[in-house]
């Protein structure tokens, strides 16, 4: 008795339901059985993702049979499949409804409960693939046997699985002695039992053939099964995502190849060069990737990430990547970073208007090789509308003066040099050089530093596009005596509060010339930090200050310069800096005193003058979690706060009673929120019950640790253009929990420097000094009620999180700044956010996230949290 599979071409159908499953290898056999049995009624127990069930249905539809099909499952899972949600059934229904819905039904039920829906002796084909213990398999078989027709056939899956408590194999060993059977071992094993008294003739070859013939039949089905399986990959989730990208690439590639081929065939165009097929395909594939997934696009990043992940997944011995907060973090601007420096672009733009930029160099006894290099870097500019204004500050070195005279003698109209008879210092020399300038803008270049070739072009491009700008600054790095580059310094966009504390602007600095003149140039008293002191004064008259996030300046690192190390000029620099800031505070009427930072050189700590408790501050405390934490939080406020005029509004859930001794206090009021209220709704309710004009929202798991926390936060909020302030938040062990939010960091937004010691300086003072950030968290945030009301409060579509970041970004959209304040750290325990809130946040602020966080330089990696480059 022989079996010719070519008589059943249905076996060659590619299964339409493609999800990873060992059953996929049995789909040709399933389709074959449908063809040969032509059942009136087919039932499957244990449909799960529907790989087997849909294969049976696909055959029924293709062969246009009158078979009724039923797939039965709870779709809740079991210990063998794992437990899962409704999404498996939803996905199956989406595939199934329109294809097979006219003859098939999915029944969500236990097998036993579903049994009563079927008459005895009616099922022609029953597939059992439920819970795989011995008892369950035996129970299902015996329970449903009565429903099977006289010509009925039963299929049992997983008959060759011996792991864990799988017991179908044992049941199979028993049953095969009682009925005629056929089995295959691949795909975890599938057994067929002819249980009816009228065995369908079509399956006789499977039951009665010689062992040799059966072996051939099994091999044939196995080959077909492997072919079917080929369409589903073992690492399905990642592969599927990658495939979706490759699909479009290959589809577009195929489309274009077809277009080209057809054009060639009508002899419209010349034919291409013949090459080996493998090389050709590879070249085309990579070409297509480059073409359809251009670098720097989101799709390309996803493709690269997916590809990388798959490669990693396929390396079994690869160490798992783990993430833990660094124990000894190092955020110094690192040495030897030549290879990691981002490539500086060398664009050549065409300017319709080209402002004249005067490059200012004060010179004093400069080693010729450095002076020559500095001047040459100006001559090498890709932007042509510049002039060079040099003032020699009474150099005593013959070679320096001679060199400058030679330059002057070369009568290059673009270069002007003046010579001072005496050494007046760098500030005065700079001012003298500015007197030579006629440009609309002046660019300051120190005598031994260098500009990158595109520096002035980048600046001019920005100035042309933004004619209102008064000041432009760029990123910088260092250059040593051997012309090696290192220590790139990537700065935030203009951050006036940060600048009050940290001299971060540095080089390259370009200023509108009339502004320099108006301010009287550099002040000799501050030589050493003259450019910083100048910027403080300049920032008091203009806010049109722009940052170019590109390295346009190489700062010479030689012994004796600050570039060599922050201690090179002793603590004199910090003293001058403090003095400059104090003068600035006086001029601007800010009631505070600057002092050198207690831990970090070249940083200033600003102490507010004593603030009287005039304004009522309302602290909103939404209660979540245990009452013990709430008690600790309130206790810390009451016992530590030296600011007296405050109230605490506790927002509790519904009728829950909170009985804590600490609550018996005049400062405290209690508000009940509906139990269904989410966190943002609770906060809005709380704010509506406050009397103060200054609001602080505080998470109940936060503990106050500084007595002057309210005074300090109020001080920073006092600036009219500040919308919200938030303190440094620490874990109980002193590591950083929150030091300001970076947009786009690891997804929608995340806190930076998490896990670092609170004593760390951060990246150029970013942890130790107050600074502008995109957002601060609701764990502790102070703002004005007036601003809150103008925004309509917190967005209540956010449930547990991101409403705070959304609030901050809306403040920023109104032109307000958000400040991170490390001076008064609070301690808190970490909580997780709702993922949907993150998605909503990303959706709302997508364009801002894409544009990059202005206070986190675009050159930093967004996959790390510590100012590292990619």
């Amino acid at each position, binding site marked *: 008795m022989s079996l010719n599979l070519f008589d059943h071409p249905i076996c060659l159908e590619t299964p339409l339901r493609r999800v990873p499953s060992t059953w996929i290898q049995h789909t040709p056999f399933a389709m074959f059985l449908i063809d040969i049995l032509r059942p009136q009624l087919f039932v499957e127990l244990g449909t799960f993702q529907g790989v087997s069930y849909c294969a049976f249905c696909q055959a029924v539809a293709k062969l246009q049979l009158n078979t009724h099909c039923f797939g039965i499952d709870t779709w809740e899972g079991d210990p063998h499949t794992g437990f899962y*949600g409704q*999404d498996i059934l*939803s996905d199956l229904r989406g595939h199934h409804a329109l294809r097979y819905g006219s003859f098939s*039904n999915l029944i969500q039920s236990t097998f036993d409960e579903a049994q009563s829906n079927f008459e005895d002796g009616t099922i022609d084909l029953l597939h059992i693939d439920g819970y795989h213990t011995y008892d369950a398999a035996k129970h299902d078989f015996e329970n449903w046997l009565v429903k099977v027709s006289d010509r009925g056939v039963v299929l049992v899956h997983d008959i060759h699985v011996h792991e864990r408590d799988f017991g179908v194999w044992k049941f199979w060993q028993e049953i095969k002695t009682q009925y005629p059977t056929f089995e295959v071992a691949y795909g975890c094993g599938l057994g067929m039992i002819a249980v009816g008294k009228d065995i369908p003739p079509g399956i006789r070859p499977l039951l009665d053939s010689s062992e040799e013939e059966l072996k051939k039949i099994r091999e044939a089905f196995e080959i077909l099964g492997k072919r079917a399986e080929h369409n589903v990959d073992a690492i399905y989730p990642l592969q599927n995502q990658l495939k979706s990208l490759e699909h479009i690439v290959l589809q*577009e590639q195929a489309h*274009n190849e077809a*277009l080209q081929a057809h054009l060639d065939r009508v002899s419209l165009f010349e034919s291409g060069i013949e090459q080996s097929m493998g090389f050709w395909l590879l070249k085309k594939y990579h070409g297509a990737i480059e073409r359809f997934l251009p670098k720097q696009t989101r799709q390309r990043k996803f493709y690269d990430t997916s590809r990388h992940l798959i490669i990693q997944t396929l390396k079994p011995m690869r160490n798992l990547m783990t993430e833990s907060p660094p124990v000894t973090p190092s955020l110094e601007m690192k040495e030897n970073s030549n290879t990691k420096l981002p490539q500086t672009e060398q664009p050549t733009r065409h300017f319709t208007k080209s402002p004249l930029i005067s490059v200012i160099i004060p010179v004093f006894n400069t080693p010729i090789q450095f002076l020559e290099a500095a001047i040459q870097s100006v001559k090498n500019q890709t932007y042509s509308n510049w002039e060079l204004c040099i003032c020699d500050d009474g150099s005593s070195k013959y070679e320096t003066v001679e060199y400058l005279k030679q330059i002057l003698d070369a009568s290059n109209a673009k270069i002007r040099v003046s010579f001072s008879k005496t050494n007046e210092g760098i500030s005065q020399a700079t001012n003298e050089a500015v007197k030579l300038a006629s440009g609309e803008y002046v660019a300051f270049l120190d005598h031994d530093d260098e500009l990158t070739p595109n520096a002035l072009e980048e600046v001019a491009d920005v100035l042309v596009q933004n004619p209102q700008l008064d000041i432009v600054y760029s990123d910088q790095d260092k250059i040593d005596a051997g012309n090696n580059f290192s220590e790139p310094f990537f700065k935030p966009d203009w951050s006036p509060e940060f600048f009050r504390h940290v001299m971060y602007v540095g080089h390259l600095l370009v200023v509108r010339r009339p502004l320099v003149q108006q301010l009287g140039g550099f002040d000799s008293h501050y030589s050493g930090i003259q450019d910083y002191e100048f910027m403080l004064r300049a920032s008091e008259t203009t806010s049109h200050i722009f940052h170019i996030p590109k390295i346009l300046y190489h700062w010479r690192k030689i012994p004796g310069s600050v570039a060599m190390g922050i201690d090179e000029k002793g603590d004199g620099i910090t003293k001058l800096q403090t003095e400059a800031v104090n003068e600035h505070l006086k001029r601007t009427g800010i009631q505070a005193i600057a002092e050198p930072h207690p831990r970090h050189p070249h940083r200033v700590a600003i102490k507010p003058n004593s603030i009287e408790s005039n304004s009522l501050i309302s602290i909103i405390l939404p209660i979540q979690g245990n009452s013990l934490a709430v008690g600790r939080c309130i206790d810390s406020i009451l016992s530590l706060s030296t600011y007296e005029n405050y109230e605490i509004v506790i927002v509790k859930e519904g009728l829950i009673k909170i009985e804590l001794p600490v609550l018996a206090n005049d400062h405290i009021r209690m508000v009940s929120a509906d139990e269904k209220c989410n966190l943002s709704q609770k906060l809005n309710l709380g704010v509506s019950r406050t009397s103060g004009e200054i609001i602080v929202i505080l998470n109940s798991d936060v503990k106050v640790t500084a007595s002057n926390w309210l005074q300090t936060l109020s001080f920073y909020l006092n600036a009219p253009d500040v919308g919200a302030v938030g303190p440094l938040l620490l874990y109980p062990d002193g590591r950083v929990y929150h030091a300001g939010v970076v947009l786009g960091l690891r997804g929608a937004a995340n806190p930076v420097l998490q896990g670092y010691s609170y004593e760390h300086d951060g990246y150029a003072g970013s942890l130790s000094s107050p600074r502008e950030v995109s957002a601060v968290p609701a764990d502790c945030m102070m703002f004005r009620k007036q601003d809150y009301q103008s925004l309509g409060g917190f967005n209540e579509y956010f449930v547990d999180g991101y409403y705070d970041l959304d609030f901050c970004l809306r403040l920023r959209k109104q032109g307000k700044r958000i400040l991170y304040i490390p001076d008064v750290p609070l301690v808190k325990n970490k909580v997780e956010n709702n993922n949907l809130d993150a*998605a*909503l946040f990303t959706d709302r602020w997508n364009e801002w996230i894409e544009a990059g966080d202005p206070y986190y330089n675009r050159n930093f990696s967004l996959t790390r949290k510590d100012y590292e480059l990619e």
Partner: protein
Amino acid sequence: MHILFVTYNHLDTNSGIHIFNVANHLVNKGVHVTVCVPYGKEKSSAVGQPRFETIDFSDIQYERWSNILETNGSVDLIHAWTPREVVRRTVVKLAEQLGCPYIVHMEDNEERLVEANTGRTIAELENLDEQQLDQLIGLGMSYPKQYREFIQHGRGVTALMDKLLEFKPKDMPGLVFWPGYEEDFDWGSSMNPGLRYQLGIGDVECVLVYTGNVHATNAHEVSSLYLAVALLNQRGIPVKLIRTGNDFVPLENSSFTITKKYFINLGFVPRSWMPQIVALADVLVQPGKADAFNEYRFPSKLPEYFASGKPVLLPPTNIGRFLVDGQECILLHEGDALEITLQLEQLLPNKALQQKIGARGQEFAHKNLQWEPSVEKLYHFYEQILLNDA
């Protein structure tokens, strides 16, 4: 009159369906029509019953082409369906060989598409030679300089949206015609409860339907719709979203993976299934906002959405500019998930409002989104072009 359409893809695509309907209606008016596709001429029958000849590029040099010319007469006018490079090269050659004029059809902001797909600006691309453009862009899109010259040397421009006529020279004849819904399908059919049951949609659940592929230019918009569905469910309004089409790029946010149970993905489905899928919807949403891509296009699914009598949410751009907000449709101004959620929170519980807006939208479709009057306008445009050329 013998019109030859030359297009960049086979007809079982959004663009191809437009050609299919235009061609069939032209044939009804006694026009001889030949449609030339690069490949896949057999796919015309997947769209419906073609009453015109479809050939592919390779047929042009063979007997079949001679037979067509013999039967239909020489070609009077070539209608280049988009200025994309493969069309441009073919049309330029054919126009010369056949000695006939051509006009160009615009359906998208070609420049924006090229920029989005290459990550380069038009100014940058303009400096590249043709060989470099072949490598970078490919023949399925427009080349910046070449497509403008191609339009300039044509006799006229047709466009799906008025703003697309900005790309033609001022003194060149232009025609805007809107696509229609396919009258052969019953777009206003009532919901099939059996199908709803099969899809596992509960009695109290509302249904949104989105039919269309996800690609680089609309992935964010579709993500917003997914997120809105998740938010509605989170806020206690049970909603299911039924999707058709392929995802050529992954959806951006994680809402899909978090809340898969709210989504039913039917994948790519035959065209004939579409009416009963649309009929499942309580509300139809075309997510997005006014931008350089959306302003210049006419989303293909909108005629059938409006013809279905269901209320439609869409951005205030392209066809949205011609609809009355709150009466014929609901316009989305931000187009983000939150706005979709807010609008649906108002609309879904209000069956009367749904019915009213759906009915007014359907009236709009019956009045403005039918192929026959559009093709009538096109026919007269052809006549004008040929008259000018005589």
